């Protein structure tokens, strides 16, 4: 009996939370117009969300690409197909690893920072204070951050893939002796702009949207205490990771299903 009561209560709690989150999203989206009028607010957030994530994305992308080069070479050389290493590295990065790993890193680097920032602003009554100054905190604080996350994500994912492909080339042709020309020409011949690159970008757009939404909502909805903010930050990373991986499966099934 106790178990069913608990089950019911937690189900209801998660649905009300989903409702609050949806309402919050509508408010964010309706606040976007005022961000476009004041690009300065956006630029500041693009810097803290996007530019400051640059380093972690580049370094991770390089190493993921290098590992792909190594692993790919070992497997492909068994079939004597080392020349297609470029295709393998590029396809896996552009289609999957680029958007997904970049989004996971983004959630850990920028998402958690957003949640902590908003949560602390709430805890120190800054949001409430703004409301009393007749300034809508959603328009002034939340929407610019949302737009910045949404815009940065595809750029960061593309950067991740690009650096990864260079990493694969460094290992493949630099270290393991795959022909340099074959690496690039096979890649160019096989990868399709619409099927591979555009689909990868669509994925990263979706991930950017969801991650920014989760991060900002968790911060805004956090219990305004030290413990509350710390738990909200954890939830941001965990929920973002789940959503990214789950959505990745759905999107992949929809995009690449016909082939």
């Amino acid at each position, binding site marked *: 009996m106790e178990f069913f009561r608990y089950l019911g209560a937690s189900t209801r709690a998660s649905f009300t939370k989903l409702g609050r989150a949806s309402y919050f999203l509508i408010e964010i989206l309706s606040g976007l117009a005022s961000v476009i009028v004041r690009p300065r607010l956006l630029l500041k957030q693009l810097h803290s969300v996007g530019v400051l994530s640059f380093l972690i994305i580049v370094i991770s992308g390089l190493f993921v690409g290098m590992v792909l080069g190594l692993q790919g070479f070992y497997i492909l050389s068994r079939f004597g197909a080392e020349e297609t290493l470029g295709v393998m590295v590029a396809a896996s990065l552009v289609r999957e690893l680029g958007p997904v790993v970049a989004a996971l890193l983004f959630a850990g680097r920028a998402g958690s920072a957003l949640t902590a920032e908003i949560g602390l602003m709430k805890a*120190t009554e*800054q949001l409430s*204070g703004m409301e*009393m*100054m*007749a*300034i809508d905190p959603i328009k*002034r604080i939340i929407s610019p951050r949302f737009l910045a996350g949404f815009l940065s994500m595809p750029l960061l994912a593309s950067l991740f893939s690009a650096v990864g492909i260079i990493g694969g080339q460094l290992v493949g042709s630099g270290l393991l002796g795959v022909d340099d020309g074959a690496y690039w020409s096979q890649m160019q011949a096989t990868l399709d702009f619409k099927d591979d690159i555009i689909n990868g970008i669509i994925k990263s757009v979706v991930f950017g949207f969801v991650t920014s939404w989760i991060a900002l909502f968790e911060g805004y909805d956090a219990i305004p205490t030290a413990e509350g903010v710390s738990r909200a930050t954890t939830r941001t990373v965990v929920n973002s990771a789940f959503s990214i991986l789950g959505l990745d499966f759905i999107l992949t099934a929809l995009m690449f299903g016909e082939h």
Partner: protein
Amino acid sequence: MDNVDSTENNLVSVHNLTFSRGEKKIFDDISLEFERGKITAIMGPSGTGKTTLLKLIGGQLFPERGNVMVNGRNVHHLKRAELYALRKRMGMLFQSGALLTDMTVYNNVAFPLREHTTLPESMIRSLVLMKLEAVGLRGARDLMPNELSGGMARRVALARAIALDPMMILYDEPFTGQDPISMGALVLLIKSLNATLGLTSIIVSHDVHETSAIADYIYVLADGKIVGQGTPQEITQSSSEWVQQFMNGAADGPVHFHYPAKEYMDDLLHSEKPLFPRSRLPDDRTAKRKRYS
């Protein structure tokens, strides 16, 4: 902006207000009046919902019953744009100051001006320096909020609250946690701002002496009711036990020192659980559940 425009004598009127949080009734059918140009204080023990009252007046919370009239308009029937227009004429001083931590003192005071007006930067500069001068912190304009002491932060917040020349200011515990010097400075400041700017001030506080020194009228709240009201003299001579306990700071009286509990001896001798339980923690399961819910 004319601060004495209405025929009514009271800027803020609260009628038959009821408000609950969960099961607990914070306010039970209370009515208060706040006269124009005066300093009215609301006092009471911690946890009597004094801050909640300010949030109700500011339209951040909605009452269950009753209404709040500010300048002749019902705050909770206003549309969002109208409410925001009204809030521009209200300043609120939060207990923590609520300064924006990513901006300098100067930019914090300039913030409402920049958001709500299209004044040129030179005009904003003059206004900001005037407001900072009024609170004695013109020299601190380039500091960040984390470099300020608590009292200074509150004074900057006060400068910000008067930036748009409001008709009233709501003070949330302005004296709490201040050393005697900054407390004295704040008392003086609130008094002189009220007189020079023609403001109406509402102070929520439990600092009896400071508040009685500057208030024109005092309400004492306890358990969701008004237990005493009057001028500071009337309040100190009040016959109510509640008011006497509060004003004199007696540990026990109508407000009990002990949180409601069963008989002490019963609790000690007839424990429901053995003193040395076999399981590590008696409430282990419920504790765990709480953590994850």
